[in-house]
């Protein structure tokens, strides 16, 4: 008897959890109708799982120098040779493991940059649009300045001044890329703040903070999401470019670093396609997946755009 009730309560808890999950799911308004967006979400899911379980999936640590059973350096091995799935680099590192660990840094950079860019951009946009006046002028002139900064050279200069690290890219994006988000969200807020419900809230004596949190913020959420997802792709691409140009962190393996490593070791001359194709394909996959999702969101946000 007791078992039955316990089971029942478990079932109700599970049902509630599923209900809550579904609620959050619906709130996010994932673009599930667009097949491209669904494909993008699947790719993201796959990469996310890979990143989380990297230790389990990768047979070797990404930077470990490996040796053959006969104690010679396991360098420049072809895929499948001596059990290395994608072969090894000229330094004797396992390429497959590097790809797997590279997923981690790619997602880490992508997501943190996205969150920071969306957050800063939204806050700036909302404050500028809602308060207007000199606050608006000041923030938008700052955005103008940010628009004037060439992004890639800026990151390189920043990397030269700071220690080379993948966080430079995130930091640089935070410093520069909030501008687009802020502009768009500001214009949205300009129309939102004249809506009847905002007026009504103001008449009833709601504080600015309350109006911002209750009425403005939820209404710009989808836009912030859109710009966040654009930022993911941008961040990964930027990190790859920076690493490829040799300004990356040699200690942490990223796909861009792998490309640079392959380039520096003349992988193309050695016809070592197994070395530079996989990271390139991974970058293409994750960036285009991001853009597919973005497109799906765009169709939800601006249904009139059509195809």
């Amino acid at each position: 008897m007791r078992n039955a009730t316990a089971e029942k309560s478990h079932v109700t808890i599970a049902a509630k959890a599923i209900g809550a999950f579904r609620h959050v799911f619906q709130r996010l308004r994932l673009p599930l109708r667009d097949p491209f967006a669904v494909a993008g979400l699947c790719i993201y899911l796959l990469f996310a799982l890979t990143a989380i379980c990297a230790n389990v999936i990768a047979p070797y640590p990404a930077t470990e120098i490996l040796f053959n059973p006969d104690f010679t350096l396991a360098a420049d091995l072809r895929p499948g040779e001596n059990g290395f799935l994608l072969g090894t680099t000229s330094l004797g590192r396992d390429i497959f493991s590097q790809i797997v660990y590279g997923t981690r840094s790619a997602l880490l950079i992508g997501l943190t940059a996205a969150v920071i860019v969306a957050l800063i951009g939204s806050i700036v946009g909302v404050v500028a649009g809602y308060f207007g006046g000199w606050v608006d002028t000041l923030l938008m002139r700052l955005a103008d300045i940010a628009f004037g900064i060439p992004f890639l050279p800026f990151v390189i200069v920043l990397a030269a001044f700071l220690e080379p690290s993948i966080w430079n890219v995130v930091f640089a994006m935070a410093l520069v890329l909030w501008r687009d988000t802020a502009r768009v969200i500001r214009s949205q807020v300009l129309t939102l703040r004249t809506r009847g419900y905002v007026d009504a809230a103001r008449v009833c004596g709601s504080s600015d903070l309350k109006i911002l949190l209750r009425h403005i913020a939820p209404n710009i959420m989808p836009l912030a999401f859109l710009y966040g997802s654009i930022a993911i792709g941008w961040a990964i691409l930027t990190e790859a470019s920076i690493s490829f140009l040799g300004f990356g962190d040699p200690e942490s393996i990223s796909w861009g670093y792998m490309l640079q490593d392959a380039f520096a070791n003349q992988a193309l001359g050695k016809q070592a396609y197994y070395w530079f194709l996989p990271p390139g394909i991974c970058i293409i996959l994750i960036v285009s997946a991001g853009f597919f999702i973005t497109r799906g969101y765009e169709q939800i946000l601006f249904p009139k755009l059509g195809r």
Partner: protein
Amino acid sequence: MTEALLSVRDLRVSYKLSHGSLDAVDGASFEVPQGSIVGLVGESGCGKSTAARALTRVIADNAAITGGQIVFDGRDIARIPERNMNALRWREIAFVPQSAMNSLDPVYTVESQLNEVLRKRGGMGRSDARKRCEELFELVGIETSRLKDYPHHFSGGMRQRVAIAIALALKPKLVIADEPVTALDVIVQRQILDQLRDLQQQLGLSVILVTHDISVVAYICDRTVVMYAGRVSEEGPVKAVLRQPAHPYSMGLKNAFPDLQSSASGVLTPIEGAPPSLAEPPPGCRFAPRCPFAAELCRQTAPLSEEVSPGHAAACHRASEAGVLRSQAALPQTWMVPA
């Protein structure tokens, strides 16, 4: 007219502009008797919306009530301190906005928006509020199962009903509806108006209906207030104002609207010209520049409102000749501008 719920006397609302100011409402007086629907009609920019909004003291930042009295239920709204105004708003005077589309927050369900009014303004408990929500939805004829829906799930007409439900939430004495049916097609307009009429009779409400559509006024209102260029040109029972208009402007308006009953040629006679600029209003009667009957006096001194019959007043120097003017006004050539 002793039992007037609301009586507006000589109301003046001014907008501050970059240079000088502009009186959008310039000495308007009218009354809203208890339990009646009063239609506030006029062209765009004649001050009808500003006047209606001034009744709740919710006006633009650069606008101010600069004169007159708004006596509601024995209190002068124009003089109540701002902090006491909120006790009056929504509990006694509620407002139905023009476009419910922009007035409902798209990210909250209509129930939570109704609840906010009931619980925050009305001080109701959770279960009372829920009961009242269902009551209100039944009142405006929407299934209670749709309370959990978001505003975009509703059609325009339903959204307007939701807005009416929200206005009625706290059982106000006076409902001000600013162009409540303007954005809707005529069939939905009729449904909403019928509903409004039913609710008004059922609940003993007084309603001010702001509109530019005389047919809406004819359909639903008991009394009408015709505004022209910030002033009230004529006020009275709908039938009297529409059948025996005493002000040339009302006569002209009547000509300019299609009439289903009179099978006339179907040619409408417009009033030539446009309302005067409120920044530099003409001296004298504001309608004089467009009025075919304007005399020298009309161009110099502004007419005062005088009763032409009990409860029916017009602000026209020649109101006493209204009978003659009406027969002339019915002829299209009267309104022709001499070329």
